[in-house]
């Protein structure tokens, strides 16, 4: 069983699937890291977790850029013809929100870190500049924004997952399966 690199008319290719599931995994890890940051004791442990959380977030941002570029040169398979207008609108709006949040959350975190005066702390040899001057007022505001965007992503991703499950179990179409690394032998 081999999965083509590029998308086909009915399924997502290997590269699109890798981008999708890698970003999903990293974002889920980010929620776990955020919970650990809120509950850990000790300055050192917290600094290390925050540094890791920030670095993973920048990896997500980089993957989001690459994924968007790949989507521009490799169009996704069309939605099933049986989908009605509101379903198509919901699907497109949901995908647009997901893409927007995947960009907005790392950027808000970068601003949050910069305002908190922790802009220099990154995991590994990579370093990123501080986007704003250190300011407790901005730190508080970007912190609220970062958390609110995180909650928004959880809500939209939850709806996205429910929609995929609805397609699979209720409508019994291929919307979910076409993003899974399962390629039927009789399908090109």
């Amino acid at each position, binding site marked *: 069983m081999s999965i083509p690199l590029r998308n086909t008319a009915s399924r997502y290719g290997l590269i699109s699937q890798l981008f999708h599931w890698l970003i999903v995994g990293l974002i889920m890890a980010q929620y776990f890291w955020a919970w650990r940051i809120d509950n850990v004791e000790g300055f050192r442990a917290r*600094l290390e977790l925050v540094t890791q959380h920030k670095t993973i977030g920048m990896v997500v941002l980089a993957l989001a850029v690459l994924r968007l570029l790949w989507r521009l040169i490799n169009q996704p398979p069309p939605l099933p013809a049986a989908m009605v207008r509101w379903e198509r609108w919901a699907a497109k709006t949901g995908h647009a929100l997901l893409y927007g949040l995947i960009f907005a959350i790392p950027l808000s975190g970068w601003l949050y870190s910069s305002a*908190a*005066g922790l802009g*220099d702390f*990154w995991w590994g040899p990579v370093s990123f500049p501080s986007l704003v001057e*250190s300011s*407790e007022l901005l*730190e508080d505001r970007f912190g609220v924004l970062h958390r609110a965007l995180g909650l928004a992503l959880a809500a939209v991703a939850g709806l996205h997952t429910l929609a995929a499950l609805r397609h699979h179990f209720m409508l019994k179409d291929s919307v979910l399966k076409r993003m899974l690394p399962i390629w039927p032998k009789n399908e090109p």
Partner: protein
Amino acid sequence: MAEKRTLNRVGFSDAIGATIFAALLVATWWPLAAVAADECYRADGDSGELNFRGEAEGTPFSGFFDDFEVRLCTVDGGLAGAAIEVRVATGSVTVGNRQGDEALRGSDLLAVEQFPEATWVSESVEAGGDGYQAEGRLRLREVSADQAVNLRLEQDGDAWWLSGDAEILRLEFNVGTGEFDDPEFIRNRVDLRFDLELEPENAG
């Protein structure tokens, strides 16, 4: 003081700052001797900067002390042998982020509530290098130890500026207990730098 506002990160060198100030004052005396003999000069947080740099998890950080006083009295009109006293309010330290400031002022690092002041008192000031080398005693967290300070003096118009640097080993002064006593986490060496405009004590 605008430059100070750009600094950030954790710092541990209050006492070092005081030492530096004192050393700077000594160095300043050399040109000042042409003006007056056996005079005293002063500088503080409004007329100078006391900055420091360190490393946390291998990442550089910087900070400064806002509240400090330096008093330098020359002997026989020269900087060599001058007497220098520096006082630093440890609670005035900042590294530009609230988590770092809380940790730095907390009981494991500078413990500013128990030890609100660090001092440096010169014991000798001699010409050396491109300026002067001052030896003295730094008292930080009630621990007293020898601390050397390098001093330089420059004239800018009518003003005399003392600058200099020192390397403080924070763990010698118990600045770093608990999770902060690991030099792999917070580097032991803290680099202090200062830049002070000296004013005659009787200037008004």
